[in-house]
Structure formats: C-alpha cells, structure tokens
C-alpha cells in the first residue's frame, strides 16, 4: 500500500487529511472523535481573544451536495477558556493545530503565544474569513498586512505558522508570497468565497448576517487554481482546502501542488466517516496510478505540463 504519512510545515502527519477549522472544532470531544475517525490532524475552530457568540441564526444555507453557505461569525469561547478543549483532544492522542483570528498583528501575536502554551503542534492564522468585519479577509487581502501579521506571529512563537489564504482577492498567490516573506512555514488555501442567498418568498437574505462564505464541491475548481498559482510563486508547503469530497479530489490538490489537505463541508454531508472513506480512496488511487507515497504526487501536474 502507498505510504500516506506526510511531513508538512515541519509537522509529521499520519496522513494528509486534516479536519478544517470551524468544523467540529468548538469542543475537545469533537476534535478527539475526528482524530479517532482517522483525520491526519485536527485544526481547532478559529479562536479569538474574547468569547464571541457569533451571528444569530440562520447561519447556514445548504445546496444539496454541491455547496454550503455559512456565516457563523466566528463563535468561540475565547482563548481564556479554550485550552481545556485542546487538552481533551491532546488527551485522546490527537495532533492538534490551533487556529486563531485577530484584528491586527499584535492581537494575532498574543493569541499565538497563548495558543502555543496549550500543546498544539502548529498555528494556523485565519486571515481569510469572508464575513467577519475587521477580521479575516479584510486583513488577509492586503499583502503588506499579511506579511506583518505572519512576521509578528513567527517572531512571537517557536511553532510552525500556517497562513490561511483568502480566495477573495485579485491575486491570492501574491498573498501567499507575502506570508512566505513573513516567515510562514506553510500556507493553506482556500477559505470560503463571499456569497449570498436570498429567499424570494420572504424577500430577504437567508443568513442573518446577509453575506456568508461558500464552501463545498462548488469551490474545488477555485481552490485548485489558487493552489496551482501559489505553487508557482512560493517554496513553502501548501495545504489545499475547498470542496474535497473524495480521494480523487485529494489527489487533484496534491498534483496541483499541495502537501496535505483540509476537509470541512463533506463532514456535514457524510459525517465523520468521510475521513476513513476518503483515506481509503486516496490509497487505492495512489496505488493504481503507481505512486509509492502520497508525497510523490505533490506538484505532479506541474511537471507534466508543457
């Protein structure tokens, strides 16, 4: 059988399928269960300085099988209370990556310092939430701010830092290059795309926050393009995210340039069993196509071209 363990951003992952931030990541028990179900590592919900209830409902609109719209509004217990959830996940043996979001470089750095103390093996910076005012992609679509935030965090903590890139930008690869300059150990791409749903009967946007973020299969081609373009611009590893629902999807991301991937929305469509199934599919596909290791597929589509 092909070897699934990969190294990425200096972390040893037992397989390249990570639980994406914001899915099952509010409670330690859920993180632990995702790990037990086979995730290569689990990424926490994005954690801020203070508890945040998030936006009122409706927070979700689901497009059967091909997409999902959400505006959760970054609900989280705050960095003060969250460490106990991480402890539960670590207690179950999980490889945990801590995701954080802040309003400026200083807030990111102080969150990172607190997060580093919990025992996580890396920190992912959410620079890309498309619907939280003052956070996420408002900072994350400006290369100068991305570089500044990443540098502040890498200066503050000894852990590998992963910058999560927004696709809501003219040049996502330029943002990845900024993260690399700032010292990021890896980038992850993509977060959700700014989107809206309207209920014509009720004559209003469905989500309470109106604008939300689109995830799921609909965005896979967009995520692949970002990973492809980032691979042409940076040397640090890339974690592919967006619309992964099968082993073939994972392999597409690897071939586009990713070293690992994150899976989110598919968990809503299928349950946590998605990790086991996708892992088996990936393994069979790598075997059939003659790859001895998952890592051998990384960037393969770039070499073939020409």
């Amino acid at each position, binding site marked *: 059988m092909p070897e699934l363990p990969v190294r990425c951003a200096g972390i040893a992952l037992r397989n390249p399928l990570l639980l994406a931030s914001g*899915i099952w990541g509010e409670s330690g028990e859920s993180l632990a269960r995702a790990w037990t179900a086979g995730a290569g590592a689990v990424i926490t919900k994005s954690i801020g300085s203070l508890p945040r209830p998030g936006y009122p409902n409706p927070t979700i609109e689901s497009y059967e099988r091909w997409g999902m719209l959400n505006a959760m509004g970054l*609900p989280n217990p705050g960095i003060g209370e969250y460490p106990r959830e991480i402890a539960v996940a670590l207690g179950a043996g999980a490889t945990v990556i801590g995701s954080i979001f802040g309003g400026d470089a200083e807030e990111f750095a102080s969150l990172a310092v607190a997060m580093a103390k919990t025992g996580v093996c890396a920190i992912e910076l959410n620079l890309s939430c498309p619907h939280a005012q003052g956070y996420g992609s408002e900072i994350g679509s400006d290369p100068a701010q991305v570089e500044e935030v990443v540098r502040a965090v890498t200066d503050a903590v000894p852990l590998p830092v992963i910058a999560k890139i927004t696709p809501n930008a003219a040049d996502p690869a330029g943002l990845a290059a900024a993260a690399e300059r700032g010292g990021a150990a890896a980038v992850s791409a993509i977060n959700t795309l700014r989107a809206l749903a309207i209920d014509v009967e009720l004559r209003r946007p469905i989500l309470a926050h109106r604008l939300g973020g689109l995830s799921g299969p609909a965005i896979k081609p967009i995520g692949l393009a970002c990973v492809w373009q980032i691979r042409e611009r940076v040397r640090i590893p890339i974690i592919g995210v967006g619309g992964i629902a099968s082993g073939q999807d994972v392999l597409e991301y690897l071939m586009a340039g990713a070293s690992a991937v994150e899976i989110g929305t598919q968990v809503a469509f299928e349950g946590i069993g998605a990790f086991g199934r996708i892992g088996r599919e990936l393994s069979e596909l790598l075997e059939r196509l003659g790859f001895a290791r998952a890592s051998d597929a990384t960037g393969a589509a770039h070499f073939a071209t020409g």
Partner: protein
Amino acid sequence: MVWFPGEDELPMSLSYTDGSSKGITVKAMGETSRNVQRIETGARLGIRGPYGNRFDLSPRRILIVAGGSGAAVLAPGAERAIEGGAEVTVALGATTETELLFRERFATMGAEVEIATDDGSAGTRGYVTVAVEQLLATHTFDAVWSCGPEIMMRKVALLARARGVASYGSVERQMKCALGMCDACALGPFHVCVEGPVFPMEKLLELPEFGAFKRDSAGRRVRF
C-alpha cells in the same frame, strides 16, 4: 429549524401533524421566543429539516415523562405510538398548574395521565420523578421516554435503569447549522442535531457533562 424572519432561527419540534397542516408550540424562553408569541396570522416562516432522529415507536407499553415544554416534543410521538397500538402512560410535570402543557391532549389521545406540580396546584405535589417512581413500581413498561430539564431526565433514567427498563430521552442544545458541522450542539462526542435529539439514556449517563453543563453560543461551558 424554524426561521422567524428578522428574528432568529430556532430548533423546534413539530408538535402537531395531521396530513395537511403542521403545528409548532413555542414557549417564551428568551427574546426571540417571546417576540414569536406576537407573530400574526398569515405571517410566513422558513423551515429547514426535519433533521435528526425520533423516538422508536416499537415498544408496546411506554411511560412518557414530560417536564415543562418537553411535552411539546413528546405529544406527537405519544399520538403516533397510540395509533400504532401502544399503551401509553404520561407523567406530566411543571412548576405550577398553568404551565402544564397538553394535559387535555394527552388524555384525549387515550393515554393514562399522571400530573405533578412543584407547588401542588394540580396532581401530586413535588417533582414529576416522584410520580415516575410510583408508576415504575406499579406498572410494567417496555420503554421510558423523557424530555425536560436534564436533571429530571437523569433521574428518570436512573429510576428506569433500576427497574431494568430501557429509557430514551430527547435533549436540547444550542443549534446553529443542524447539519453536524458547526459543533454548536456538541454533547460529549455527539452532535444533538444529527445523532439526536433522542438518545438511549445509557449513552448520556456515561457523559460527565450530561445534566451538568451545556454550551452557550460562544461554545463556553455553562452549568445548568
């Protein structure tokens, strides 16, 4: 999930279904559910779902324990069980007589109804669990269903366990996505929106947090 446009979207059980129309029963708990009381006839709501599971209707002799608004969740199940030929006994509890929900309805559908109020304004005085203990001692049941405050549900489950009767409970948690994704409704390793709201009580009794804490909108642990 029921969307009250301009207000909020809340998890609600169908408390009435008769082929053509469906009903929900909303208890004024907080801001939204209070505002909802003022909704006018003809107003339009949004509905997503149904999500999650329901009570298994196969047991033949069922004890239903409803605390407060829990009756809204249990009434349609009781109706369907009786239609299916089950014998249903209902232990209905509330703080006071005026809070007793669906007292008439349970009687009309053919259930045996025992009442308990904390203040004794109707039925037995005291917690509904006292009535439950008596019923378990005097009747034979294949299953116990409960819905109400978690402390009540916990007690009911322990009483049922002591008598060797299988028990199931419908629990409440914060709900946002209702799709098993956002973790708002996490209860131990479970997601109430997908794997619940009905659980075998034996699974819940194992969880240190059951009856001890829930999570608020921010995901913080909040003691009951």
